């Protein structure tokens, strides 16, 4: 039973209230509404009134966002993956976060610039050249003042150690991310107090510039384990370098502390022989969710974010005040793979029809074209648009033309029936639905898959889209006919691309990264020739020929060149996107505009 004191009747209460009480209540209600509405009304878009441009910034890839900067300040750069292995050269350590950090502290002989060209790291080496072609001998002359943060000089010992841990002959147990090129080294010798490094190759390696892209300090390795035995090499490489946050550096900054939350604070490396970094501190902050990265940038908790661009993400960044951003082409190619283990797809005519029916322009318009109007279909198998060697070899072959009529004609001429309804192969067997596995939660890829499905339905080919969390496992099990994925097309074309196209040994359905069991003996031969020639022109000629041969086989459909999104405080200058060596490649130049 309710107490009379506590009972209130709704219909009479307002009348019973005093005028003062009513006014108080109305004021409170108005305040509540204002507090609820004002945050939504606060405009966050538009350009800053300051001198620096905000919003979309364009320009030459190597000089975009260039400005004169002041000394001092701290910049906080966002990393995406938790650091589970500190060794950038280890198979488990070759993650984006570790590469971001390693670009600052681990020097390499050559730096890959944002436009994909190579630049000698003049702070480390005076020069690097092939002194002899038979055997191929590369001589590096190190700078006398190149040293690690503890004062120890960078010498041939560091080169020798970095070689051995990436050569399976020298260290079979070392879990290197890649051994490409290093397994072909016969010897590494040092002279002139270790400042001249002579590398002799067992057989010529045309892309020798990709050797020693990150150096490990040999003198530090010796404190972990002996470096003169395979067991010692493995222990140091797999364990010590992997588990210990590096306290050494030969770059502009050195790690001062790594925090429990997976973030890293760097301070200037006083022993660095390059131009003094402008920033006083460089912080790498771990934020694993890209949506939270944008909010953190908006709230000035971070100064730079480098997420994979998505339509809604770019829209969010556009709306931020005092924030500039760049959308630039990456060195990654997004393409469709066809599984040649699948019987129907062993028919070249069907593959050609599939590739002709798919409309690459439509796919681009519905995906990256929404945030980059300049995006065009990728017309090459081995190169991206800003690389030497890029040429349009696809248009003439109908790649990504979206021409269902031409595709249908190809099928009819090859003896297929049921074109446009339910395709039947020349042998009378109906063509089964082609499985296209996708990783769940990726909006752009899902949209793409739907467009591919619609395009192929027009020629009578059904596509079954399957969502999976483990794309590689599905691919290795062979439960697919079509797949979408990215390839990194670095300047070292033959080294990076060959694993995707090299013929698998007999009896194997896949090998290396050739999951679709593509094989062409001529392509194999030309890749080998491209890798072992000492002439740059010959190398390019071989690769161009490979490009054409792969195109004629209709086993892959390059769709577009991926995009990079780099967003940062409007007054932070000299920071630019870099697909290969990451934006931190020139961290010593970053700074706040004067």
């Amino acid at each position, binding site marked *: *039973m*309710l*107490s009379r004191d*506590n*009972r*209130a009747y*709704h219909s009479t*209460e307002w009348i019973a209230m005093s005028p003062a009480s009513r006014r108080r*209540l109305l004021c409170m209600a108005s305040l509540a509404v204002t507090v609820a509405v*004002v*945050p*939504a009304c*606060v405009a966050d878009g538009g350009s800053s009134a300051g001198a620096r441009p905000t919003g979309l910034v364009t320009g030459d890839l190597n000089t975009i966002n260039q400005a004169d900067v002041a000394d001092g300040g*701290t910049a*906080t750069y966002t990393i995406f993956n*938790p*650091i*589970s*292995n500190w060794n950038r050269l*280890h*198979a488990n*350590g*070759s993650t984006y976060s570790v590469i971001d950090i390693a670009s600052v502290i681990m020097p390499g002989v050559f730096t890959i610039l944002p436009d994909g060209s190579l630049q000698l790291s003049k702070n480390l080496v005076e020069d690097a050249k092939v002194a002899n072609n038979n055997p191929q001998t590369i001589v590096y002359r190190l700078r006398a003042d190149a040293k690690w943060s503890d004062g120890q000089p960078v010498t041939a010992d560091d080169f020798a150690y970095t070689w051995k841990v990436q050569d*399976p002959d020298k260290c079979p*147990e070392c*879990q*290197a*991310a890649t*051994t490409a090129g290093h397994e072909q080294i016969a010897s590494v010798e040092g002279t002139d107090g270790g400042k001249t490094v002579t590398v002799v190759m067992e057989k010529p390696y045309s892309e020798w510039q990709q050797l020693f892209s990150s150096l490990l300090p040999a003198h530090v390795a010796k404190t972990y384990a002996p470096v003169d035995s395979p067991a010692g090499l493995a222990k140091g490489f797999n364990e010590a370098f*992997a*588990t*210990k946050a590096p306290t050494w550096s030969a770059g502009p900054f050195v790690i001062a502390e790594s925090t*429990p*939350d*997976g*973030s890293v604070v760097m301070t200037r490396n006083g022993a660095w022989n390059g131009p003094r970094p402008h920033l006083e501190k460089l*912080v790498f*902050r*771990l*934020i*694993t*969710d890209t949506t*939270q990265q944008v*909010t*953190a940038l*908006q*709230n*000035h*908790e971070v100064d730079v974010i480098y997420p994979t661009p998505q339509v809604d993400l770019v829209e969010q960044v556009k709306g931020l005040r005092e924030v500039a951003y760049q959308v630039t082409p990456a060195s990654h190619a997004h393409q469709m793979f066809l599984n040649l283990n699948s019987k129907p797809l062993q028919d070249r005519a069907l593959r050609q029809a599939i590739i002709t029916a798919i409309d690459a322009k439509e796919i681009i318009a519905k995906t990256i074209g929404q945030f980059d109007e300049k995006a065009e279909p990728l017309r090459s198998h081995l190169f991206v648009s800003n690389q030497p060697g890029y040429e349009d070899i696809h248009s003439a072959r109908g790649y990504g033309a979206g021409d269902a009529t031409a595709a249908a004609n190809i099928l009819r001429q090859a003896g297929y029936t049921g074109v446009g309804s339910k395709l039947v192969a020349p042998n009378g067997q109906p063509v089964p639905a082609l499985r296209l596995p996708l990783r769940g939660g990726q909006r752009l890829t899902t949209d793409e898959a739907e467009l591919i499905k619609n395009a192929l339905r027009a020629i009578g080919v059904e596509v079954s889209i399957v969502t999976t*969390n*483990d*794309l*590689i*496992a599905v691919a*290795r099990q062979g439960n697919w006919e079509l797949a979408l994925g990215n390839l990194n097309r670095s300047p070292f074309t033959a*080294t*990076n691309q060959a*694993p995707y196209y090299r013929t698998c040994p007999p009896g194997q359905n896949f090998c*290396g*990264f050739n999951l679709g069991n593509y094989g062409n003996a001529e392509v194999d031969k030309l890749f080998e020739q491209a890798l072992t020639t000492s002439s740059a022109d010959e190398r390019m000629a071989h690769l161009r020929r490979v490009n054409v041969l792969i195109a004629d086989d209709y086993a892959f459909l390059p769709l577009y060149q991926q995009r990079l999104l780099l967003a940062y405080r409007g007054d932070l200058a000299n920071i630019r996107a870099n697909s290969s060596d990451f934006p931190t490649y020139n961290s010593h130049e970053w700074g706040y505009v004067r």
Partner: protein
Amino acid sequence: MVTYVLRRLALAIPIAVVATFVVFLMVSFSGDPLADLKAATPPPSPRVIELEEQRLHLDQPLLVRYGNWLVGLPQGEFGPSVRTNVRIDEEILSRAAVTFRLVIGAFLLALLISVVIGVISAYRQRTYVDHGFSFAALLFLSMPTFWFAVLLKQAGISLNDLLGRDVVYTVGEGSIIPPTGLAERVVDIAGHMVLPTICLALVSIGAWSRFQRAAMVEVLNSDFIRLARSKGLSRNRVLFRHALRAALIPLVTVSSMDIAALVSGSVVMEKVFQWRGMGDFLVTSISQRDAYAVMSWLAVTAVTVVVLNLICDMVYGLLDPRIRYA
């Protein structure tokens, strides 16, 4: 009481074993922990993959792996993590402190606000105040917490812009470069705690305030309260000395049952606010198919929830002298 505590703990052990085994099976069958490694560009050599499989005991049968983990658990051996530089025991210890801060903060905030709202609503039942609180509670209960998180973050950013300085923060449990000075450090931690703690507490406030209101209304209408009023005791004395204590008992019951929900909610909050706590550890471990890490998380969390429930039971006994545990 000691016997009761020991019996509760003893009951929790077989439940935890079954739960960890089920989770182990689920994680093991969800995919290959080495999938990311195998998908690397360029791909690693077969030898590298073989060594990694040996390190993670993936070359052993499922039951053997689980059995070895179970045997090692009491000795503090939590098994190898997919992440090379991570020791699961050290990671859990450091992250537990972070989550503990968030969960306890949210629990206490929710409790305090629920009691206040519940008492006011009950005393002013069927007034605009009561209706306002009811509406708010319904809102907190029905809206997803991540939606609130987004709104609160934007409100926090607007507040910072208004004040021209960083008062509240949207990511992390503390500044990467912490300020010097104890007071500044406390303010920094508080600034990072405000938004996630409020977010996590909101759903509980919605539910608990209604329980507290209902309990208070029932107690306020009971005979002993009527007697107290008729004896001439003041309103405040009746409310806080007599009614509230009796009305807290159901709230303690409900809140102790909700601790597990708070821990679950902290998983979402840690993801949204990027706190490196147990929730973030769980999400990362699941995404990396790190079976040992996930099982270890479950074992530690199960024990924690059991212990916190036991504490609530003891508080229950303090509030109500009629309760005695065998």
